[in-house]
């Protein structure tokens, strides 16, 4: 909605700007026109020059050649009326122009027309010099205003300009608001669509087509969303179902193999074979539950039971569990908690985080059957805790590193089971990041970065 208000204010401002620009341009054009036409009217010779070039000598008038040419070019005819009202000199005078004038005749035409000929006059000592133009070639008007109006015009002109500007802004605002009102539901619809809510806009009015388009897009999106979640659900249910169905027969395999393994009547070699069956069944059991967990994590179906967890305590507990479970002497597990991380807390699911770290340690053990030194380090930054599990073992191949750091898809499990995939998924579900690296001195490290809890007691 914020962007809509911005659009509206921009729109109003630009409309007002356009109005002002138009006003200024028009005013300027008017001024230019007036000046231009004034210059046009001035032409080559003005009337006073022409009048002066008509000279009288002993009662005979002569007009200079240049003036004659000028009059022929600019006007149609010319005459001189003496103070008695008689035409004493003329040039190209048409027939319908009288040769004798009374005072009222003179007063009548001086500013206007003489028998429809537009005329211009110039007062001389010996009479009135009259220039006539072609009928209908000039439009004459007279302006007359009270003095107060002319005095106030200095105030009025800017006032009118400002008023014009204001009206322009108001009108723009009015039209803008109308547009805004009809755009508002559309903007809301687009927002809803982004939030994956179904959109049903009214398709009436100016923007009806646009609204219909948005409705259609939304319906399409909803359909796709439903199809996707149906597929995801089917996948989860399928995996859960398969793992459920495997459990019961596996119980029987595990149960009998375990009984055979402990049967004192059987020879040792047979009992050892039964032990192999039992251990492999347990591996299948782990795989089945890993597959189930991974599929639920992948599609956000695994509930995360958050509570505040002291990471240092969690890590020491995990390391001790490994050491107490009869880990061979060829493995060393060292837990290093940096001074600032002693009391680091994160909000998360304790079981899942424990599983993530345990998977990493178990991975180091499994891939280094001849033993290795495992180092679990906890460090704390401003907003994150970095938790790393490193070992001095064989490390990852380049191919594995690429797969792990840039997973192509959930189902991409080559070489490295589900253990590390689950680690990445768990950390992702906690809003953290996972990085797999080889160490220059040999071995590898996996760095888990988790946001620290707001209730950290530091």
């Amino acid at each position, binding site marked *: 909605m914020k962007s809509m208000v911005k659009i509206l204010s921009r729109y109003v401002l630009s409309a007002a700007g356009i109005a002002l620009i138009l006003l200024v341009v028009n005013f300027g054009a008017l001024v230019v026109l007036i000046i231009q036409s004034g210059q046009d009217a001035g032409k080559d010779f003005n009337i006073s020059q022409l009048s002066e070039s008509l000279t009288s000598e002993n009662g005979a008038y002569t007009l200079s050649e240049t003036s004659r040419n000028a009059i022929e070019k600019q006007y149609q005819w010319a005459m001189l009326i003496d103070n008695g009202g008689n035409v004493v000199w003329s040039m190209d005078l048409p027939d319908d122009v009288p040769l004798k004038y009374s005072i009222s005749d003179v007063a009548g035409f001086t500013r206007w027309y003489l028998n429809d000929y537009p005329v211009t006059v110039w007062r001389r000592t010996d009479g009135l010099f009259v220039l006539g133009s072609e009928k209908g070639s000039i439009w004459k008007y007279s302006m007359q205003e009270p003095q107060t109006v002319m005095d106030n015009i200095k105030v009025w002109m800017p006032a009118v300009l400002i008023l014009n500007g204001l009206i322009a802004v108001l009108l723009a605002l009015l039209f803008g608001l109308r547009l805004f009102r009809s755009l508002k539901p559309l903007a809301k619809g687009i927002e809803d669509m982004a939030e994956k809510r179904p959109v049903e806009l009214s398709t009436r009015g100016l923007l009806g087509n646009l609204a219909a388009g948005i409705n259609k897009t939304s319906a399409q999106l909803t359909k796709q969303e439903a199809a996707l979640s149906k597929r995801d659900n089917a996948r989860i249910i399928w995996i*859960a179902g398969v*793992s*459920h*169905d495997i*459990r*019961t027969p*596996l*119980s*029987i*395999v*595990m*149960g*009998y193999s*375990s*009984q055979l393994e402990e049967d004192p009547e059987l020879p040792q070699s047979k009992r050892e074979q039964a032990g192999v069956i*039992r251990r492999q*069944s*347990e591996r299948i*059991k782990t795989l089945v*539950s890993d597959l*189930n967990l991974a599929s639920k994590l992948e599609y956000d179906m695994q*509930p995360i039971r958050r509570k505040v967890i*002291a990471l*240092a*305590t969690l890590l*020491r*507990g995990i*390391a*001790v569990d490994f*050491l*107490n479970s009869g880990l061979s002497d060829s493995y060393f597990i*060292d*837990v*290093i*908690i940096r001074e600032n991380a*002693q*009391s680091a807390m994160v909000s998360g699911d304790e079981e899942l985080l424990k599983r993530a770290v345990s998977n990493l340690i178990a991975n180091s053990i499994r891939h280094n059957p001849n033993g290795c030194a495992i180092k679990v380090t906890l460090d704390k930054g401003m907003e994150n805790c970095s938790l790393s599990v490193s070992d001095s073992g064989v490390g990852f191949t380049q191919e594995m590193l690429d797969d792990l750091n840039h997973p192509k898809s959930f189902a991409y499990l080559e070489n490295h089971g589900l253990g590390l995939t689950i680690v990445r998924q768990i950390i992702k579900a906690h809003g953290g990041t996972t990085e797999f690296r080889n160490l220059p001195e040999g071995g590898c490290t996996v760095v888990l970065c988790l946001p620290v809890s707001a209730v950290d007691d530091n």
Partner: protein
Amino acid sequence: MSRIYAIMIVVITMNDIFDCKLLIVDDGPELRKMVNEILRREGFMKIVSAADCKEARQLFAHEKPDGVILDVSLPDGDGFSLMREFRAASAVPVLFLSARDEDENRLLGLGLGADDYITKPFLPRELTLRLRAVLSRAYFPVILRRTEKPIFRLGETEIDLNSGTVITNNDRLTLTAKEFALLEKLYENRGNIVTGDSLCRAAWGDDLYGYENTLMVHIRRLREKIEPEPSSPRYLLTVRGLGYKLTGVEGK
């Protein structure tokens, strides 16, 4: 009330948990047979089994079992509602054996009052251990069992956790409350590493953070009492960065 009543009667008629009559409810015949064998091998002799809810109800009414092992998914109903029915009639202990491992199911089962919940597949040992624990809790509660604490030796030193005393060749020392709490925790996990956090929870009810020095002081004092040479400990060992470990424990 009903549970206490039941216990009192059972105590009179039952010598040990192997006298308990058990009801197994599972729709898989092979699984029923195997569980039956596992339990017989363990020493339980009175075992009846049912394949569905209907049969289970009849057997429950006639045989009055002392313990029930129940599958969650049954052909004609679910184990959770069956347990509710049983519980309405008696306080019989119920152990779920389920192929569903979703946490919700586990929590639902335990929330409804199941005594334990085992996820398939399971090792026979897990089933028998848990079943025995469930039955002991129900029929031979703590008050009827031996409440004596252990007496053990660390080399020449004898430690009695009942009185909290340490007896050496020529001396008799008493443990303080904190030293006792720490030593008891270490003894319970003898041979295994116990994290500093667990020790602090046992002695102070809190994690290690903030107690590091206090814990070290108390461990040193404990060593002065139980170790022949406290500066080079032989029994109470430090596991750097993790915690402590009590080794070399011998019975009395």
